């Protein structure tokens, strides 16, 4: 059947019937591998939005393909299938795809691979990530301003550096407003589990938290906040539709500019292996519209966002006091990228222990 269609297309080209079908044959194939469903309205949803942006901007030259809900244990075969199917560039969008991506990349040196949130590169494997902690600093400030009880609930998945840095940035932001601000943390050991996330939110609210922060991908915690007349922040995508009264703002991952740029690089033949770590300055991380907030808080949050964007403010500016009382960083200078990417300690004021 495939052959038949191919020969039909070849025939069409030979007869010069349609120029469009000729270019259809030469389209570059850009492919995405997702760990979740494109309808999660969080992490995978935003990556898929990035893919759609590529289709919109480069649609005449690029054809996109995606595979969703790929279990880590199955990912090597799924990646290899994409490589064999003629994908020129493959984005693997979960940390767990790191080793499989590298393995397949070795077999297909001419295919470009891009692995999100990992730390291992190769001549044809790039890593890319975003400085989500910049957004967390902003919501920390908002939480400290808005909370009446002075306690936020924080739902987290896995104690990887990105998540730890997020908690720390949130606390540093909050402490810049209210030095005594407290946070209660619940680890649910999953990135997407609406049931567990909702349960955690209910527990945290009943323990006195009045603002919900999440580093998990479902809309459930915000929906609980909405039901209980409490507030919270969206994760990865603007979740305002699910919590019109509860959401203050959301930290939005905007992968579209990066994806468009990288696919263009492949088209132009200028693609190079690199490690990319963009943040608010590049537009990869931004805050969704500030809602349900008084004017002075909106002003403060906007100013902080602008300061981070322009580089005037860095969430991790030394000296920072760790949980054990020791300090890190030189006065007035931001921590190095390595310190943040490998962060394995809490700042003072976080009442939780990292599993060691």
């Amino acid at each position, binding site marked *: *059947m*495939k052959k038949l269609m191919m020969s039909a297309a070849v025939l069409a080209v030979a007869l010069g019937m349609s120029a469009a079908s000729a270019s259809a044959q030469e389209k570059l194939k850009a492919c995405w591998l997702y760990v979740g*469903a494109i309808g999660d309205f969080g992490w995978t949803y935003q990556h898929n939005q990035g893919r759609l942006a590529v289709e919109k901007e480069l649609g005449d030259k690029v054809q996109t*393909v*995606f*595979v*969703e*809900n*790929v*279990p*880590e*244990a*199955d990912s*090597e*075969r*799924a990646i*290899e*299938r*994409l490589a*064999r*199917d003629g994908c020129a560039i493959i984005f693997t969008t979960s*940390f*767990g795809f790191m*080793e499989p991506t590298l393995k397949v990349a070795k077999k297909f040196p001419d295919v470009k691979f891009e692995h999100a949130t990992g*730390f291992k590169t190769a001549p044809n494997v790039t890593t890319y990530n975003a400085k989500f902690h910049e957004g967390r600093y902003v919501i920390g400030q908002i939480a400290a301003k808005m909370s009446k009880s002075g306690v936020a609930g924080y739902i987290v998945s*896995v*104690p*990887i*550096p990105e998540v*730890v840095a997020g908690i720390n940035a949130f606390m540093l932001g909050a402490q810049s407003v209210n030095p005594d601000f407290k946070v209660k943390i619940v680890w649910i*050991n999953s990135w997407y589990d609406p049931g567990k996330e909702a349960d955690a939110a209910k527990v945290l609210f009943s323990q006195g938290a009045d603002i919900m922060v999440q580093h998990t991908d479902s809309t459930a915690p915000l929906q609980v906040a909405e039901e209980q007349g409490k507030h919270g922040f969206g994760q990865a995508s603007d979740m305002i539709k699910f919590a019109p009264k509860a959401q203050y703002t959301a930290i939005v991952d905007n992968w579209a500019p990066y994806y468009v740029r990288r696919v263009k690089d492949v088209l132009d033949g200028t693609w190079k292996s690199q490690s990319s770590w963009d943040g608010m300055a590049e537009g990869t991380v931004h805050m969704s519209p500030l809602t349900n907030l008084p004017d002075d808080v909106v002003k403060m949050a906007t100013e902080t966002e602008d300061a981070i964007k322009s580089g005037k403010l860095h969430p991790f500016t030394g000296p920072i006091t760790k949980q054990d009382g020791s300090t890190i960083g030189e006065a007035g200078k931001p921590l190095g990228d390595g310190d943040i990417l*490998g962060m*394995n300690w809490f700042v003072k004021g976080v009442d939780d222990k*990292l*599993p060691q």
Partner: protein
Amino acid sequence: MPLVLEKRAERSTRMALLSPVIAIALTLITGAVLFAIRGIDPLHGLYVYFVEPLTLMWSVEQLIVKATPLVLIGVGLAVCYTANVWNIGAEGQFTMGAIFGGMIPVLFPAWQSPLTLITMLLFGIAGGMGWAAIPAWLKTRFNANEILTSLMLVYVAQLLLDWLVRGPWRDPQGFNFPKTITFDGWQLLPMLSGSIHLGALFALVAALILAFVMARMLKGFEIRVSGNAPRAGRFAGFSRPRTIMFCFLLSGGLAGLAGITEVASVVAQLQPQISPGYGFTAIIVAFLGRLNPIGAIFAGLMLALSYLGGEAAQVSLGLSDRIAKVFQGILLFYILACDTLILYRFRWLKTQVSATVQPAE
């Protein structure tokens, strides 16, 4: 006029063998209808789903890799179910096999010799057997329902694995990610050809041995009698508790072996997720294979194909990933329906007497 299921007087052996074929055919027809509803040429859809994966050497290899754990677990379950022993917890025994076998490279990362691999495999089998022994013991000692106990132990095993890879067994260089170190050298199974590893041979040998045992040896007869006519079995001196324990240890050991072969090949490390539900899919394998070990080989390949086809359908046809689950579900539904209709037939009850309605046994 109520509709009742009535037991047929005669059981047709020919239909019993044809039942999976009919079920597969009905699945294909339903699939074609589904494709048509989604606006996809049904023939092209079925081609992409069920034929294309068989046309490339690479995907045939992947098919065998995928079928390996399904067959290993499925043959054990086939024996179990023949004896009327309901081990539903193969997924947990698979996980315990992976944990016990994976313990060796995690705790002794520097130990590299052929003996490493052999120890891993033996530990894996022991882990699966040990885990399966619990519901078996509960059944024989307290008459606890083994369907419930074995199923619940799945979650215990998964949580244990989860805790281990997040805590004590975490890779110290792994930035707190819930993964152990990656296995290497003699901590991995040797390759047979391409991406097919030694586990495929284990599956084949296990199926052949069990087929021989079931067809030709006293143990096989004992298992069948114990399943079909427990009372007759007791008169013949066959011990029901021993049969239960034997079946659980056998299927648990094989599931454990499947677990360690999977982490010592495809996954190459321990992580929270090591199986897309092989232990549960293997239940379909056992039934589709007519509870016959040789049949389980073909059934395992068929279900592996449904996984690969599901991926192909996503990539080439843009269908949702749920399509593979839908096909597996439809297939199981038709098998059970066909089997039911071989043993029973529908009859309209004309009178109003409903006391004679027999529940399906």
